[in-house]
């Protein structure tokens, strides 16, 4: 399987060959290149996702979806981007201006940071920490701050209600996400993202980990949906109760940033699901089927990762467009009365499974 570290090492060698006396400049240039790549990938993925959602939603609802702008509607998203970039940004008088303008950037920063940690393929990731998973869980928490600030600084009752709801919701469900991630860390024996992926070389954790892994997967899907403010848990922006929730007062590109982050977060949670349960960029291997395994190995690892992430996204969209919205008290009861205790027990069971060596 192709390893992208060859390319990165070559670029590094080339740059050091040019300016051997200035290693700091080499590092700076590399950082800028990586940053640029990251931002470009970020916006491209977000745009693809917005269209993906619109087509999937149309398909589920027996509609056609965008098909007029450009061939098959593919240019629709560019029209939207141009539109939203030139839209007026309304400066409200009764808001806390600094916080009001800071909030969308906080939300985007959180999603860029989590996005940066995803392993895109073999050797194709920004940095390989030994605490990678821990870092993801930590930085995704910044998003809550952005949402809370947006609601608070807008000085609008609807926004405030939306922000309060989302604060309660995201903080609660972070626990469940954490527990299901911990369950897998326990199974893999490492927090490093590469380590987790490589541990799945001979079988994905979803199949390897027995019942606890399956349970953790289900809990993860529910909790990730909730943390993402999507699906049946879109209370913070519940359109039919709070008009647009915490971003009611935002216009133009500020609103665009929220919109962008929402879809990127969807990619991030799908990516993490793929990483933890579906083997990340590892190809599908069935023990014993040598020919099949070799064919699978020829598919580039990046495609494997993206394919899995897109599949997970489809599941999230399917859930979103099928279920009605839950109520705030039901939402919290679901987390604190069911998901969290089950997650805790599940973690213990997983620890027992691992120590006894019952997993495959």
């Amino acid at each position: 399987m192709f390893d992208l570290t060859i390319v990165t090492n070559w670029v590094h060698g080339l740059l050091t060959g040019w300016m051997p006396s200035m290693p700091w400049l080499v590092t700076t240039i590399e950082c800028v290149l990586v940053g640029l790549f990251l931002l470009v990938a970020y916006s491209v993925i977000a745009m693809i996702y917005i269209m993906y959602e619109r087509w999937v939603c149309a398909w589920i609802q027996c509609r056609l979806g965008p098909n007029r702008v450009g061939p098959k509607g593919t240019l629709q998203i560019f029209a939207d981007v141009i539109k939203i970039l030139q839209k007026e940004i309304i400066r409200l008088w009764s808001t806390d201006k600094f916080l009001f303008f800071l909030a969308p950037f906080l939300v985007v920063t959180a999603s860029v940071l989590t996005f940066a940690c995803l392993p895109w393929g073999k050797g194709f990731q920004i940095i390989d920490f030994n605490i990678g998973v821990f870092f993801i869980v930590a930085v995704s928490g910044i998003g809550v701050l952005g949402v809370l600030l947006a609601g608070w600084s807008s000085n609008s009752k609807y926004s405030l209600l939306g922000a309060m709801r989302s604060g309660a919701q995201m903080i609660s469900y972070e626990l469940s996400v954490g527990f299901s991630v911990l369950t897998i860390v326990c199974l893999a024996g490492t927090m490093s993202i590469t380590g987790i992926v490589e541990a799945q070389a001979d079988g994905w954790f979803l199949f390897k980990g027995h019942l606890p892994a399956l349970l953790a997967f289900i809990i993860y899907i529910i909790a990730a949906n909730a943390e993402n403010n999507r699906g049946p848990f879109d209370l913070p922006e519940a359109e039919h109760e709070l008009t647009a929730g915490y971003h009611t007062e935002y216009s133009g590109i500020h609103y665009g940033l929220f919109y962008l982050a929402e879809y990127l977060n969807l990619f991030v949670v799908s990516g993490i699901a793929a990483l933890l349960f579906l083997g990340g960029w590892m190809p599908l291997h069935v023990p014993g089927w040598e020919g099949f395994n070799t064919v699978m190995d020829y598919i580039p690892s990046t495609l494997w990762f993206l394919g899995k992430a897109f599949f997970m996204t489809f599941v999230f969209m399917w859930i979103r467009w099928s279920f009605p919205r839950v109520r705030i008290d039901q939402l919290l009861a679901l987390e604190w009365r069911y998901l969290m205790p089950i997650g805790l027990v599940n973690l213990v069971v997983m620890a027992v499974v691992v120590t006894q060596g019952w997993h495959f």
Partner: protein
Amino acid sequence: MDELKDKILALCPQAVADTSGELLLVTVPDAAWHALAVALKEQLGFDYLTALVGMDWKTSLGCYYYLTNSATQEMLHVRVETADRKQPVLHSVADVWSVANFQEREVYDFYGIAFIGHPDMRRFFLRNDWVGHPLRKDYDTSDELNPLRLTDEQNEDDTQRWVEDEKGRVTVVKDKVFADDEYVINVGPQHPSTHGVMRYRVSLDGEVVKKVDVVSGYIHRGIEKLCENLTYMQTLLYTERMDYMSAMQNRHCLCLCLEKALGIEVPRRAELIRLMMDELMRLSSHLLSYGCLTMDQGATTAFFYGFRDRELIYDIFDKTCGARMSMSYHTIGGVVADVHPDFVADVRHACDVIEKNLAEYHQLFTGNVIARNRMVGVGLLSREQALDYAITGPSGRASGVSCDVRKKHPYSLYSEFEFDEVTRTEGDSMARYMVRMDEMVQSIKILRQACDKLEAEEGNEYCAKVPKVIKLPEGHWYQQVEASRGAFGVYVEADQESKPFQKPYRMHFQSPCFNLVGVVDLTCRDNLVADLITITASIDFVIPDIDR
């Protein structure tokens, strides 16, 4: 009728009873009215205030109260008036029938009659700073008095009460709707889930609703006043623009009322076509309310499925009437034109498709655990409350009130058809939703029978002979039909003055949604904000029908 008359005269010797009209008319002086009202409700069982019609008889102002005994379906109406045109006051019956609360506010708005003992005497439809009372015959319509104001309304919290002490002196007491320290959130008039331009001012404690103040009138177009300047044929137009989801039934109601006044016999085939159109409209309306209810709870896909099937019904309307909405199809004496040749086949097809899809709807939404959690036991309305607030239609039947006008006061050809009146006893949002879903099955049943009957019908007569100039005899009539959302009533009063074309002296539309909105505060209290949306969606009112 005579028996009832004797009973009432025994209860209230000052009353004058008149049995010459279609219903027993009791005229009572204002001072004796409240006592009689209590007696009528408690001793004679008249527990359902069907309609309250404000009137201006030029020399005096007053009201007609149409009352129904919900057990025997006996009806009568009471006339109460006051000769004082400067500061007219009557006694309120809001404590006897709670539905009178909003009805009396409407009368106060239109005629300026203040009701003694009413808890919250504010205008209902017009702005707080409106000058005059538009339905009075001497109302000045000039634009200088009430120009188009682009400033916001002020003093929304102020209300007033008329209080009478033991000596009979009437004083006005100022009140506040909300206390100063309440967290009041404004839902509407432009809000995605108010289904139009309704506005609630909701006092919250955290996310729990403490009180809902309904502010209506954002689409009040003054239809009743407009009707007074049109001929009878022209007034038909407005019935479709009140509850546009029961356009056919509403128009049918006014046609029936005028036919009753004129003594016109409608051909059987025409009546059959009308009935089928009514039921198609009901199907369409219930599909819409399914869609809106699901969308308000976030299940967007279900909404699209509901709309997919409505298109079938729209096609039928389109073919026969030439329009998808506001069909203008019923007319005095029958219908405007004969049905399209494909009509029966199309109806059968639509029935089959919708019947099949109903199972899919139940699968998608009804059995869903989230939907059940959100609707079961939410927004309870007991049978007594429903009667007290005169809640009819699917919402009333969900509380166990048997109030289907098609069964209770059969009109058109409904007595010939086999169908069940769907009632439930739970009285929660789920029951209201389920009643609608089950009524669709009944409508399909009626339509299938009607298709057979229409095919068997000979001839192609679709309208009776109706005089070119419609001239009603002097008098007043009241007719009700079962619209999609409850009992829709029309009150018509004719005099002989306006010439050469006769115009109605007074036309009042008793819309079911007007009563439905009265229970919003009652059902939403102590529920969450999210429940407010569920409850209002399950009660399912159409705002232009409330505001008229």
